[in-house]
């Protein structure tokens, strides 16, 4: 969009004018926005005590850890309304003998939250919810201080996340995702899978997401031990309509073995061989570096 508007002098002029109007409008909105932020970011002990009391009334995502008990691949069985470009890509797609951890790269949102066996841990302080995701050893920061998204968030693996509560549901809006995050755009029918392929990733259609990928997560407790995540993916390069895979479920873990651990990816021996297009394992030499 920005490229297009820059293509002629006239549109640049229009953009500058509308930009100024936007800035003016933004100035008008500042007091209100600042107020919203003030409420969530206490600056005195009294305000802080009040904010913690408010936090105490929220559903408890905080005790213990959560780990995915849904299959690692998201369920896209309700066929998305794909764009012609996405349909063309899927027609040519061959199941990749792929490993998300090849080269020790972080997976990125949303796939990073899909792995069972390694939990996530929620923390909160006024204005921010943080989520440690063990499977990549990374922490998401979800801003709950009433801010808006940056105009041009810098690309990152977990994106820029802004959250708010709608009743008992935490709604998190994420943009600014790096172009090379692992991205699932669909599920292959069983008829296209190789016999004897036990990999739970075999059915996944991996692909590149568009630059404006936006994720909206709705998180709520189904019962004391179960957290449900309803994801909606906005990416008009792939889906004509925003798409919601089957909700993912997480199990609360309060035993010692469920406690979060560090994750440092230091000894990767899987690598993707560009020449053959296959995953290979380097077992002869020492591990591949990061």
């Amino acid at each position: 969009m920005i490229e297009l508007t820059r293509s002629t002098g006239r549109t640049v002029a229009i953009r500058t004018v509308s930009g100024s109007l936007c800035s003016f409008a933004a100035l008008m909105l500042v007091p209100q926005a600042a107020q919203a932020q003030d409420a969530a970011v206490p600056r005195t002990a009294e305000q802080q005590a009040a904010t913690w009391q408010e936090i105490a009334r929220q559903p408890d995502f905080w005790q213990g850890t959560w780990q995915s008990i849904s299959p690692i691949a998201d369920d896209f069985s309700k066929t998305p309304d794909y764009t012609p470009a996405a349909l063309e890509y899927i027609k040519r797609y061959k199941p990749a003998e792929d490993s998300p951890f090849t080269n020790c790269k972080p997976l990125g949102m949303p796939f990073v939250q899909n792995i069972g066996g390694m939990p996530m841990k929620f923390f909160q302080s006024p204005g921010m919810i943080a989520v440690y995701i063990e499977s990549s050893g990374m922490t998401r920061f979800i801003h709950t201080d009433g801010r808006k998204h940056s105009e041009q968030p810098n690309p990152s693996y977990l994106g820029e996340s802004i959250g708010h509560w709608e009743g008992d549901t935490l709604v998190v809006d994420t943009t600014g995702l790096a172009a090379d995050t692992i991205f699932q755009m669909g599920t292959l029918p069983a008829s296209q899978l190789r016999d004897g392929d036990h990999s739970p990733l075999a059915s996944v259609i991996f692909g590149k997401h568009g630059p404006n990928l936006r994720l909206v997560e709705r998180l709520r407790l189904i019962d004391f031990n179960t957290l449900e995540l309803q994801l909606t993916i906005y990416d008009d390069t792939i889906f004509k309509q925003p798409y919601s895979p089957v909700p993912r479920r997480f199990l609360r873990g309060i035993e010692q073995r469920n406690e979060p651990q560090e994750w440092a990816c230091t000894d990767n021996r899987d690598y993707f061989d560009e020449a053959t297009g296959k995953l290979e394992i380097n077992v002869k030499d020492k591990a591949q570096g990061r």
Partner: protein
Amino acid sequence: MTHHAQSRIGKWKLAVAAVATLWGPTAQAHHSFGKFDMARLVTVQGTVREWTWANPHTWLIVVVRRANGTTEQWSLVGSSPNMMSRWGWNAADIKPGDKLTIDIHPGRDGQTIGAMQTIFLANGKVLADPAGSTGQALAGGPSRLPTKPQGQPYK
């Protein structure tokens, strides 16, 4: 039917159910199984040369002496230390020089590589690799450990 035979059938049914659960559509994994023949289970006996407790995967290099007197080096991949520690593994369980019996899924292409399934230590401890288990099983720990190797002996 004797009570003993009944309980044997019960165990067999359980084993089938366990395998079905292990490789059902809800299985979890974060490395490719493409290189390994997951339908085959082979038992190798060897001496530990290298044991690497690191992410994303543990690696166990063992020297296996064959019936004809030659030796082979097998490279075996396991799950992540994070998952394995939750299933009772400890980095100190294995040291170079240890003699181990290991059930593995061998490489498809005849390479001496494999995916670990169960390790039987000389002291009697049995360690199951959580790879391929369901989210619930990963959270809850191994439900049932074999007491002796289940694979076809590699000679």
